[in-house]
């Protein structure tokens, strides 16, 4: 109610509203007072006080209560247009009217505070729930690779001489792979924390999309294996102002996501399109697609699908959304009619691309 207005203007607006409402009640009562009993005019004022109490804070409600009594006395209690009171029983009327008005405003104020407290408690409970979920998920995700690293390393240390070369190599391989997984998890956590705390500075420079796709595919390197990757990026696609490091990370996360959820020989398609507002980039696969209704939820923290190979951090796509939004763009997922899912994001281009030195051939 008044909570979405900043404090100082809210107070002044509240007091202004109190004066306005009392004036309005007076005007209405004045217009029809010949048809009304005095007791009903009191009701009109009390209605005004209820309104002011409901919409503002305690101070303006008190003002409305006092002003109502004064206006009632001045305009409607004989002698008219004077604060003098001839019949002393009206003093009781004033006192009761004031008390009722004050009680109404106090009650309304209390209800409003309780409502606000309940709302705040709900928000903090939601934050708390998410934080706990994140914490338990992260501690599980951190412990699993740590357990296999510790186990493998201690096996090698304590009984390495009894193990054959193949087993030793397997244990070393496990240490290496699990450390790599741990590293990715820690990177994701750091990136998510930086994005959420607003510590990410977007350093925009003009980039060709093709270069970032190439860098992302290069960095994924071995993880791509023999996976067919089809790229469709028009040669005349304009340069886009973006942070190269962040957008490379975004592309890596999207491609990595496709790798995790689709069979090993299933192709990944990367395409880019330009229009007047900027560019749209698409990373699409031929996997099982998203469960209907999950197209939005996939970008939530800790959302995990049925990955066939290893468990991710549950943060990859949430990071993608953070990066795109930091660029003023939009990201969404759609199941493809031919099967599989397409992740698409837009990057706006508002400025004119910079000039390139004239052709040198």
């Amino acid at each position, binding site marked *: 109610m008044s909570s979405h207005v900043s404090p100082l203007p809210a107070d002044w607006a509240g007091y202004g509203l109190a004066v306005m409402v009392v004036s309005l009640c007076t005007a209405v009562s004045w217009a029809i007072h010949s048809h009304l009993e005095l007791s009903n005019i009191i009701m009109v004022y009390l209605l005004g006080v209820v309104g002011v109490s409901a919409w503002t804070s305690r101070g303006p409600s008190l003002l409305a209560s006092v002003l109502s009594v004064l206006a009632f006395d001045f305009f409607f209690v004989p002698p008219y247009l004077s604060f003098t009171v001839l019949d002393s029983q009206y003093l009781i009327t004033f006192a009761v009217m004031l008390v009722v008005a004050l009680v109404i405003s106090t009650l309304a104020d209390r209800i409003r505070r309780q409502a606000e407290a309940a709302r705040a408690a709900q928000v903090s409970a939601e934050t708390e729930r998410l934080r706990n979920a994140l914490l338990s998920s992260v501690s599980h995700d951190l412990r699993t690779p740590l357990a296999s690293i510790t186990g493998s390393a201690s096996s090698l240390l304590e009984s390495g001489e009894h193990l054959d070369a193949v087993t030793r190599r397997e244990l070393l391989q496990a240490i290496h792979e699990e450390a790599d997984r741990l*590293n990715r998890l820690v990177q994701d956590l750091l990136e998510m924390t930086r994005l959420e705390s607003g510590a990410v500075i977007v350093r925009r420079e003009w980039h060709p999309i093709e270069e970032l796709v190439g860098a992302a*595919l*290069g960095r994924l390197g071995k993880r791509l294996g023999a996976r067919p990757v089809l790229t469709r990026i028009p040669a005349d696609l304009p340069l886009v102002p973006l942070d190269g490091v962040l957008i490379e990370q975004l592309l890596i996360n999207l491609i990595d996501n496709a790798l995790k959820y689709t069979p090993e020989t299933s192709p990944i398609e*990367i395409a880019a399109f330009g229009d007047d507002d900027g560019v749209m980039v698409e990373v699409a696969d031929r996997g099982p697609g998203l469960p209907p209704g999950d197209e939005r939820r996939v970008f939530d923290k800790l959302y995990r699908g049925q990955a066939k190979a290893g468990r991710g951090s549950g943060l990859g796509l949430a990071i993608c959304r953070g990066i795109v939004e930091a660029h003023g763009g939009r990201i969404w997922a759609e199941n493809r009619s031919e099967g599989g899912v397409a992740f698409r994001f837009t990057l706006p281009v508002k400025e004119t691309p910079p000039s390139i030195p004239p052709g040198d051939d």
Partner: protein
Amino acid sequence: MTDNEEALVLLIEDEAQIRRFLRAALGAHGYRLVESTTGEDGLVQAATRLPDLVIVDLGLPDLDGVDVIRKLREWASVPIIVLSARGQERDKITALDAGADDYVSKPFGVGELLARMRVALRHASSAKEPDQPTFTVGDLKVDLAHRKVFTGDKEVHLTPIEFKLLTTLVRYAGKVLTHRQLLKEVWGPPYADQAHYLRVYMAQLRRKLEADPARPRYFLTEPGVGYRLASE
């Protein structure tokens, strides 16, 4: 590895565990190692032991790793490789612009560090010899003497700027070059901040010389830092 002829490596790193695994790995590949845990001591060791290569961690307790590089570069041309964390792209650029030859991001595999070391040592030794007339990697062949470029048997026509960019990359093949370094070298110092010139010309080179420009094999991007021409 026989091409390092027991090169002497100075490692300036304060983390004992990193020193331990590098001692084992470099020793196994025939390098001799001098270790230093602070920047000040590292500079003294560099002056007295005259190493063939220096590996310096950017996060040292006493001096900033970049200061170590600057002080070393006042008198020494020894190749320097920086160890830094991922996400510190600005620090990497500062270190490279201050005179470091290359970097690896922690956590790194030994293979990656050894590859960087080989390239750095090769450049240091070839600086004393005349330039090779041709450069070859995979299908790409650059005939510097006759100013001709081939992919496989096919000659490719390049514009003068494309050719200048290519030859600059070839001169430092295998080594990372920052945007600034390339822009200064190819377009001249007034253009050092026009990174988009470089990106556009790099895209043109890839389109002419790579089989798939969206999956480059030769002209590699180091996001936020610069470019590297593959040499192996």
